[in-house]
């Protein structure tokens, strides 16, 4: 197992120069009975988003309490590795938006197997080895500030965004934001998936460079920035985090050329102590009521986007498969980040 540890250390060292010291959960919460043992769920999802779903779960399963820990995706990846190494997992379930990291954990034999009629009913792109399941469906969208971007400028495709960035208008200079891919596992995954659609991605890089785009951290901050007019446009934002009531002046676009669909990956660590509760939670998330809760939280959008101009065939689900291992490859990642840094002038 030492080779894993070395690999992990190398990855962490490469990926987290600024955040390496941040090694605890960002937030905690507890659902269900206040006393007695609780199953530990570690997730990258904001507590406020997933909270109601967990509340419903513990209400339906009175014996089970859920101790929720919210982590950054890279930190979650690191702690999961350490647990796997140690052969004893503090977490009983892990739910991460950085699917490629979860695939790597499963590929390294860190996950326990489970099969139920609900899990077997998932499409092939949303399950792997009966050890990793995609429980949500969230689009990667372009958002814009409705005051700063005139209707004729609203980019409905990546090509429109490209044209916008190439116009060298001061209105958009330094006002386009996207994820900092070195800090956000999810941002990296989105960018990597974009790179597989090669032709557009090269041009996008060039466009970001020309428009002096901003790479920054975290969904909430980016959305807030767009809402308050700090940024005019943000690219590859997780659509499920945009809340019309909380974030006024934000328009959402499902790119019509293709819209990446993220399915957060749920894993039950092999060495977790409360695997049964974790399995119950998985079955709940895949059940009718669980799906209703996720849908209410915006984590499960149906195939039909509100922006109905995007055809369903343009929805491109990020398949949970070993192909995602390429995204985590040390040299691949180094090359990718080098290219990214060059575009953002760092």
């Amino acid at each position, binding site marked *: 197992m*030492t*080779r*894993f540890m*070395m*690999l992990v250390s190398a990855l962490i060292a490469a990926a987290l120069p600024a955040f390496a010291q941040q090694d605890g959960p960002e937030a905690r919460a507890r659902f269900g009975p206040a006393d007695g043992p609780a199953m530990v769920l570690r997730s990258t999802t904001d507590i406020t988003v997933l909270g109601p779903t967990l509340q419903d779960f513990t209400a339906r399963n009175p014996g089970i309490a859920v101790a929720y820990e919210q982590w950054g995706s890279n930190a979650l990846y690191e702690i999961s590795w350490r647990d796997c190494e140690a052969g004893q997992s503090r977490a009983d379930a892990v739910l991460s938006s950085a699917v490629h990291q979860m695939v790597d954990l*499963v*590929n*390294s*034999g860190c996950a326990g197997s489970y099969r139920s009629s609900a899990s077997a009913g998932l499409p*092939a792109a949303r399950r*792997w*080895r*009966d050890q990793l399941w995609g429980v949500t469906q969230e689009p990667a969208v372009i958002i814009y500030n409705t005051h700063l971007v005139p209707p004729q400028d609203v980019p409905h495709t990546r090509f429109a965004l490209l044209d916008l960035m190439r116009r060298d208008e001061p209105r958009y200079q330094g006002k386009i934001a996207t994820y900092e891919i070195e800090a956000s596992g999810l941002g990296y995954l989105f960018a990597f998936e974009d790179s*597989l659609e090669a032709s557009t991605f090269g041009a996008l890089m060039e466009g970001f460079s020309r428009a002096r785009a901003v790479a920054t951290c975290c969904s909430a901050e980016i959305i807030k920035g767009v809402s308050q007019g700090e940024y005019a446009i943000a690219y590859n934002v997780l659509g499920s985090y945009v809340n019309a009531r909380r974030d006024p002046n934000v328009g959402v676009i499902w790119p019509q050329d293709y819209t990446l669909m993220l399915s957060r990956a749920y894993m039950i660590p092999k060495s977790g102590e409360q695997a049964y509760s974790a399995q119950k939670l998985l079955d709940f998330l895949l059940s009718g009521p669980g799906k209703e809760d996720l849908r209410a939280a915006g984590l499960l959008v149906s195939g039909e986007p509100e922006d109905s101009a995007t055809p369903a065939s343009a929805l491109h689900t990020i398949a949970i*498969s*070993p*192909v995602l*291992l*390429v995204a985590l*490859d*040390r*040299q*691949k990642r180094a*090359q990718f980040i080098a290219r990214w840094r060059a575009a953002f002038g760092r």
Partner: protein
Amino acid sequence: MSRPAVIAGATASLKRRVISGVLALLLVGGAVAALAAFGYGRAAARESYDRLLLGAANDIAEAISIQNGAPVVDLPVAAFQLLALAPDDRIYYSVRGPDGAVLTGATGPLAQAGQTATPKFFDSKMGDENARFVSLARRFAERSFSGTVTVIVGQTLRARTEMALGLTRDALIAAAIGGIALLAAAVLVIDRAMRPLRRIADQLVGRDPHDLTPMETQVPAEVAVMVGAMNRFMARLDRQVAAMRNLISDTAHQLRTPVAALRVQAELASAEEDDARREQILTRLQRRTRSLGELLDQMLSRALVIHRTDAARRVPLDLRDVALDVIESRDHELVAPSRDVVLEIGEEAVMVMADTLSLSEALRNLLGNALKHGAGRVRVGVTQEGAQACLWVEDSGPGPSAEVLERIGERFEKNAASVGQSAGLGLSIARAVAFAFGGELKLGATGQGFRATISLPMQEEQI
């Protein structure tokens, strides 16, 4: 037609035996087929997925380039898409420089990784799962970098196992279908083959108890053997039953008249007061009783002969021995001590297939007839006439009247019996014996007298 369900002592039904035989064959064959199919399936799965593994390793090796004097891997997605064709298997990959330093991918030692350009497959573990690996070397000889870069790609075995099991399952399903068809065909064929037996059984059950006629032989050769044997058995039974019936009716008929005469004589004797006359009656009574005894002897002998001719084994024998034995026993001297009996036999053996006792009895009867009813000297002889062997008795008298001769074909002559004489019975014995051994009884006058001949076919080859 009712049919006995189970016959005591019958062994297991032929159908059940064949079915269990075929079933056993199928089970053994199925096990062998399963093993063979699994072996084949494993080989096929290994070959297919080894190709995927090698393809991926080649893809990765192709993607190695030298940048700034160091090998760099631009890991191709295509390689992993290839590996993902085994959708549920974990993947291992590692690219190492000439000094064994890991360029990218998994670290940690792998003993079997070779340095040869030809790909090398090997089995090892990935964590706690068995896995298959391939190691492939690519040599660089450039100004800035020279050395061998090794690519190792591995994959767990789920897809392989699944494919092998799938192939095995398919083969077994095919074998099972074939087996069931074979079983059904076997049952059908046996059922058809056994149908004649059932028909014969039905016929036997439905038969009149007195019907001993042969059964039809339109049956398969295997069954015909049995039917033939049964028919022969029934024919013998028929003859014996007929002989028995004849004996009983003959005996009753033959005995009724003499016994009635005896009773009358006895009544007369008891009623007679004159001693001299009673003495006379008693003498007659005595003679009659002796005659009755002789008749009984003859009848028994006939019954014996008829039984023997049917049951006794035929052996090659010399007719001269038979004649000699009868003459030498000198029984005729008791019957007619004053009469002259001459034996006339040749130098050469006259062989027939027959039973000595039956022939002796027949000859004894003919001799008795000649002594009793014939006249003058009696000659007993054996001659060979063409393919016929003849055993004959000749007296010097004229023989019976033509009228009697005509009736000689009947079983016996009632009139002869009724007077306590039994020429007819003796002839009938001789005739039965001749007939039983495939010959005949000839009666007729010769120049010197009356001759009775038992004529039998010669035994063809002397052994």
